């Protein structure tokens, strides 16, 4: 089991990655359509190929995409969901809402 601060660093990178609408666009296209090259992404998104390359580098750094070397030296990028699932656990903790549940219990006991 990795150290807590290591886990938190992963989650922070995920949230930084998701803070940019263009990176959300890249992740959305990879999630919907599977692995794609930077050129494919530039065709499908209103972003220049240079900007896509920059965002893909940041996403790879965060562990959210990996580069695969395919035929004719084309590099395809693939979504990696594990860091996202980690960030999702943190979001889950924040949305558990025991306050509302315990109010419902209080109400139930009063009836």
């Amino acid at each position, binding site marked *: 089991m990795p150290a807590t601060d290591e886990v938190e660093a992963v989650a922070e990178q995920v949230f930084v990655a998701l803070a940019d609408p263009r990176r959300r666009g890249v992740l959305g296209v990879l999630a919907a359509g599977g692995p794609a090259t930077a050129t494919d992404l530039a065709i499908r998104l209103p972003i220049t190929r240079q900007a896509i390359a920059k965002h893909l580098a940041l996403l790879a750094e965060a562990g959210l995409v990996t580069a*695969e070397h395919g035929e004719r030296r084309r590099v395809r990028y693939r979504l990696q969901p594990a860091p996202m699932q980690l960030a999702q*656990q943190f979001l889950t903790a924040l949305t558990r809402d025991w306050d509302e549940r315990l109010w419902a219990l209080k109400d139930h*006991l009063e009836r």
Partner: protein
Amino acid sequence: MGFPDQIERTVELAHPPAKVWAALTTAEGLGAWFGNKATIDLRPGGAAEMTWTTGDRAEMRVERVDEPTTFGFTWHIYGLPTEDPRRTYVEFTLVPVDTGTRLTVIESGFAQLPDGEYSKAFAGNTEGWASELGELVDYLDAA
């Protein structure tokens, strides 16, 4: 550390522990305040389930039954794929007080992450749909 591994809440209830215990551990109780309908096999390892009229459903496994002071169960982490084995542990503790019952709920395990998951994120592992589709192609080619 900015993110919690556990959540803890305490409420004072103007009812004796026995009544609170029933609300927490019977199908009638759970189905009234927690879910819209519930079933429970109240023993360690027993299964419990809550359903909501929205179509949501929660499956629990009873872990601890010390009537009328401690009731614990684990359940799946909402938002993760259903095949993900990680679960959080929820424990209710009932303490009798002059005015009724002090109830504490602790849900823990939010920051857990098995080694496998972690290495999968960074090893550039190419498992997943594409490799499964690749296997299908190999299988069809061999036929």
